């Protein structure tokens, strides 16, 4: 397909949607969360119901990616009114169709958050859960059918690639990304434009683009939801990246635990190839780009870029020291651009709307929006996207609906095993890369676990240390032996069996492991420990006090 044919196709598809006889659209969330709570059965039942009532020409059923409030699933959205029904059961399908489609009245008690809000909103966008969000990366997740490229085309799909290829030089693309001030969403927040420029500058006849979809942090599901909900957006970002840095081959590294994401991404590649949006001479230009999926075996360390590259090369997934960075010597020793799923998913909107537009969202040092996976003791958990600089309080109380059972907020854990805890006194922190680092945590990839008073912070630190100990690749000494030693010491404290000397040792080891480890896994493994020590030291002290009470004899002076 050449450029003109592509334009014609987009117009034709857009017309087709506009002129469709279907006045009603019912979206069923087919994200992994809702599927696990039974959305596939709901969809089947809905299809039967529509056929039974002979409404096929009026109602279109769209299976979509994650809509956001995953713990209320299965979710069903009625368009154009935008009413979302929660916890939909096969038994209330008929009632919903009757009332919403035929009688045009929403059924209040089945609407989203009907069981917890005084009055649910019949237009979900007015609910604080959604109104406080700004969706750029997730914009079309929950709206389009991720398995149909035509749906994506109607939603501005591949227009950014078209624009980049025919109206921009690689330098222009890089300049636009630099102007956007976007930072990588994989954890470290490295400026994306700068990374692209570095790879672009290395002269080599073979370069690679890698999309990091390993997402190994416990509790994180941002990348999975993007890959499942809008795989073409990621693919488009990778192709634009390839064009900008001069690479003709891309790999998407997706963890094996995400079969649905893999299936949809592979389907997306096939569809894009068929339309000439991927493969040789894309849209008739002289840019060729091909993407292959590589499936990870589920080791956390394989998310680290050099380990991931080793894994793609078919080797044992262990990191190697940097420098040289992948931009200089990456996959098979060639200059390689490696970005996170969410980073790539944010590229097309920047090309379409301009870097300036993006740079104005967020905070001065962290532009744009961030996707978080909200979990823990919070009323509404799920997937959200907010402008950088949104306060933790807004996220927890406005979007997340506060603490379960009216409990008290104790801390929020960000950045998973590489991050730290933010205590209640910092609820007003404006979430961006710097602010979180200042509090001893990190943005990380976007996991956000909310804890209430029942959480034991020493045990939280022990839990994450156990994770790092198990996931350490075992290559370097500080991480391999250090995480084991720190874990054992933390266990000792949890068991009220540790003395002050143990605590001193633990603190010394933590700083050593952080600084001496080869890669970021060991480099950040002590973070949950260090941050709980910083904000909740008293919980450590209490336990050591208990040990001392038992084991240190206080001289009984009165008996002398």
């Amino acid at each position, binding site marked *: 397909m050449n450029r003109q044919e592509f334009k014609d196709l987009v117009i034709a598809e857009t017309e087709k949607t506009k002129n469709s006889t279907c006045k009603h659209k019912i979206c069923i969330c087919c994200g992994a969360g809702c599927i696990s709570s039974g959305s596939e059965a709901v969809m089947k039942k809905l299809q039967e119901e529509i056929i039974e009532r002979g409404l096929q020409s009026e109602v279109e059923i769209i299976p979509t990616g994650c809509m956001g409030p995953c713990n209320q699933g299965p979710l069903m959205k009625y368009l154009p009114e935008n009413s979302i029904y929660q916890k939909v059961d096969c038994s209330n399908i008929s009632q919903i169709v009757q009332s919403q489609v035929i009688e045009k009245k929403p059924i209040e008690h089945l609407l989203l958050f009907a069981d917890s809000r005084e009055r649910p909103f019949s237009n979900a966008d007015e609910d604080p859960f959604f109104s406080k969000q700004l969706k750029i990366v997730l914009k079309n997740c929950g709206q389009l059918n991720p398995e149909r490229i035509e749906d994506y085309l109607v939603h501005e799909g591949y227009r950014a690639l078209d624009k980049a290829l025919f109206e921009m030089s690689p330098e222009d693309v890089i300049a636009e990304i630099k102007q956007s001030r976007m930072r990588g969403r994989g954890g470290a927040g490295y400026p994306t434009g700068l990374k692209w420029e570095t790879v672009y500058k290395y002269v080599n006849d073979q370069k690679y683009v890698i999309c990091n979809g390993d997402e190994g942090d416990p509790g994180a599901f941002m990348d999975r939801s993007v890959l499942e909900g809008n795989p073409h957006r990621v693919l488009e970002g990778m192709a634009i990246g390839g064009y900008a840095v001069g690479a003709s081959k891309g790999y998407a590294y997706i963890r094996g635990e995400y079969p649905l994401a893999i299936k949809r991404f592979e389907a997306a590649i096939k569809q894009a190839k068929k339309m000439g949006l991927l493969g040789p001479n894309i849209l008739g230009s002289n840019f060729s780009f091909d993407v292959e999926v590589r499936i990870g075996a589920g*080791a956390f*360390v394989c998310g680290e870029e050099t380990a991931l590259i080793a894994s793609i090369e078919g080797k*044992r997934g262990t990191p*190697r*020291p940097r*420098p040289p960075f992948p931009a200089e010597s990456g996959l098979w020793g060639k200059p390689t651009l490696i970005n996170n799923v969410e980073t790539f998913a944010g590229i097309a909107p920047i090309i379409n709307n301009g870097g300036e537009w993006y740079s104005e969202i967020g905070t001065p040092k962290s532009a744009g929006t961030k996707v978080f996976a909200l979990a823990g003791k919070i009323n509404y958990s799920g997937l959200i996207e907010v402008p950088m600089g949104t306060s933790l309080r807004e996220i927890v109380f406005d979007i997340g609906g506060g603490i379960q059972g009216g409990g008290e907020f104790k801390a929020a854990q960000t950045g998973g095993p590489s991050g730290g805890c933010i205590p209640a006194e910092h609820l007003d922190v404006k979430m961006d890369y710097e602010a979180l680092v200042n509090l001893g945590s990190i943005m990380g990839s976007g996991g956000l676990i909310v804890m209430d008073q029942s959480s034991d912070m020493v045990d939280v630190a022990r839990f994450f240390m156990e994770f790092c*100990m*198990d*996931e*350490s*690749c*075992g*290559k*370097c*000494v*500080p991480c*391999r*032996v*250090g*995480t*084991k*030693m720190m874990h*054992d010491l933390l266990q000792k404290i949890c068991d009220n069996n540790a003395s002050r000397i143990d605590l001193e*040792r633990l603190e*010394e*080891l933590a700083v*050593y492991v952080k*600084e*001496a*480890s*080869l890669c970021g896994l060991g480099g950040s493994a002590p973070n949950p420990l260090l941050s709980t020590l910083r904000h909740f030291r008293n919980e450590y002290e209490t336990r050591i006090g208990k040990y001392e009470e038992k084991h240190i004899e206080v001289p009984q002076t009165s008996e002398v």
Partner: protein
Amino acid sequence: MNTIDIKINERSLKVLPGITILQACRDNGIDILTMCHLKGLSDVGACRLCLVEIEGINKLLSACTTRVASNMVIRTDTEKIKRYQRITTELFFAERNHVCSVCVANGNCELQELGYKVGMDHIRYPFLFPECKVDTSHQYFVMDHNRCIMCTRCVRACSEVEGAFNWDVKNRGFQVRVISDFDTPWGESITCTSCGKCLQACPTGALWSKDVVQGQLEKHPEMITELVEKRKLLLT
């Protein structure tokens, strides 16, 4: 030949571009501790003993894997580096079973030497004493996992110098172990050529030949270096 200027521990030096910081130190008689490095084999940066501080870089980098750059200002002797070398050494000793008095390598062991060098008078961490096998199935050699420090010098000597690829690594974290072929007894290996290079590469009493007794082991890791260098000469 073109040289670049660098500074190590306040000393101004002219060195060849492209060499590692470790090489620059060794060429100029600056002492630097290493364990996973063996000249002639590729470098992996695993033991973290050779960490150095570099001005303008907020991370410690391993000297064996980092190349010099013009005007680099390097320190190898700060208090922090010394403290970290000592912790690393203690962790080596605490990780498996290193009771020198009953080891074949006693008196001829790089780990033992390291302990002396960093002034390790005691070990502050509990001994983990994991259950480790002693593989005596090979006709001539023994692999005692209790003494292995996972430097992977044997793995690299076997693949890079002998080209036999007998050794590899299995598992993760502190469960990592060196394995022969697909984790089968060494004696049943179909790749091992019994060349003995891994024995020479090994810094500890983990790999040894059956004809030695306690404290009698002699090792010549420099043999690997010489071999590689002679081969290079042959090729040029």
